[in-house]
Structure formats: C-alpha cells, structure tokens
C-alpha cells in the first residue's frame, strides 16, 4: 500500500489519521474519475466552444459577450500546442486533470503547471486587448 512507503514523510502538521485518510481519499478519487472516463475519448478540440446565451441583459452585453468569447478563442489558438491541449481538455471540456495526466503519461502537478501558464498567458492577452474579465456585467 502506497501509504506505508510514505510513512517517513509524515511531518505532524495534521493528525496522523487525517494524513492517512488523505491518501485513501485521493487514491479513491483518482480511481473514480479514471473509471468514469475509462472508455471516453479525451476531447482536445474547441468544437464545443461555449456560445452566448440569449439571456444576456441587453444587446450591448450580448455583443460584449461575443467579443470576449471571440478574443478568448483567438488567444487559445496562440498558446503552445501543449498549453492548448491541456487548456482545451481540462478547462474547456472538464476532463479531470489526473485522467489527462494518466493518458499523457505525466503527473497531475506537471499538467497543472502547464494549465496555470496557459491561463496566465490568456489573462494577459485579454487584458492587453482591454478585455479584463474581473467583475460581472458592466
């Protein structure tokens, strides 16, 4: 059992039972997510890109939403191939990051770093276009 190999890592910053249960929870979660995706293809395209709903408060907001989506889609196209692959799968298509890590033979931590870098680049690019996204409808 993997926890027995990690006993030396216990630093006492939580109770031992909490520390031990954490391993069980994460291992179980990884197995459940893997099982749910075991026969599913990982979506790596932007074919299911979200569209603007009809419930925008008004024509101005509807146009603004389309501008934002269009700009974001363009900027996703400027990511590196690896960043785009991870962003599209995890952020856009809700593939669990540990499922993608297993398929790509890498680690969850390494993929999250790639996702973080992609998100940072996209935020900066949108801000440069005057499309900062903090806050709700203006």
């Amino acid at each position, binding site marked *: 059992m993997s926890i027995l190999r990690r006993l030396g890592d216990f630093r006492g910053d939580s*109770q031992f039972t909490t520390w031990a249960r*954490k391993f069980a929870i*994460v291992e179980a*979660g990884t197995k459940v997510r893997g099982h749910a995706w075991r026969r599913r293809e990982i979506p790596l395209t932007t074919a299911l890109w*979200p569209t603007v*709903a009809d419930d925008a408060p008004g024509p101005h907001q509807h146009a603004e939403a389309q501008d934002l989506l269009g700009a*974001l889609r363009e900027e996703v196209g400027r990511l590196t191939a690896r960043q785009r692959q991870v962003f599209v799968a995890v952020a856009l298509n809700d593939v669990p990051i540990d499922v993608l890590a297993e398929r790509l033979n890498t680690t*969850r931590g390494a993929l999250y770093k790639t996702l973080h870098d992609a998100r940072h680049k996209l935020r900066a690019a949108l801000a440069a276009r005057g499309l900062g996204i903090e806050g*709700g409808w203006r």
Partner: protein
Amino acid sequence: MTGNMPGDPRRTADHLLGPAGPELGCDECFEMLGAYVELELAGAPADAQMPLMRAHLAGCSACRDDHDSLLALLLADPGEPA
C-alpha cells in the same frame, strides 16, 4: 464548460481562466490538504493561514473534489481527539 455561456460571460471566462493571482500547485496542495481541512473543521481562518490554497481549489476541480471528500469524511468521523 461547454454549451451556452450563462448570462454573464465574464464569470464564465473567469471560470475558464482560473485564479487571477498566485496559487499552490497540485503537489503542494496535496501536502497541505490535511492541515487545511483540520483548520476549517476547527473554525480557524484557514484561508488567512494558507492563502494560496483556496485559490488552487478554485482553479483545480480534481483537488477541489479531493478536498470536499476529505472534509466530508472528517465531518462524519472526526477520528482521534485533537
């Protein structure tokens, strides 16, 4: 995050783009998860003591699921007394 964008696209974009500021990585999150959940259960200001953890949980659905599961387990069975 596919399908129609809900009424406010900025919130949807915010979800796609994750936390704006610094955050932990998955490995650091795993290391600190037990202590963070124990602080939450004790009613202590977990986010003030581990400010980058909440940002990571907002941006990583797998770590958020693991956090929620551990919190639910410890709520149901607190284990050894502190």
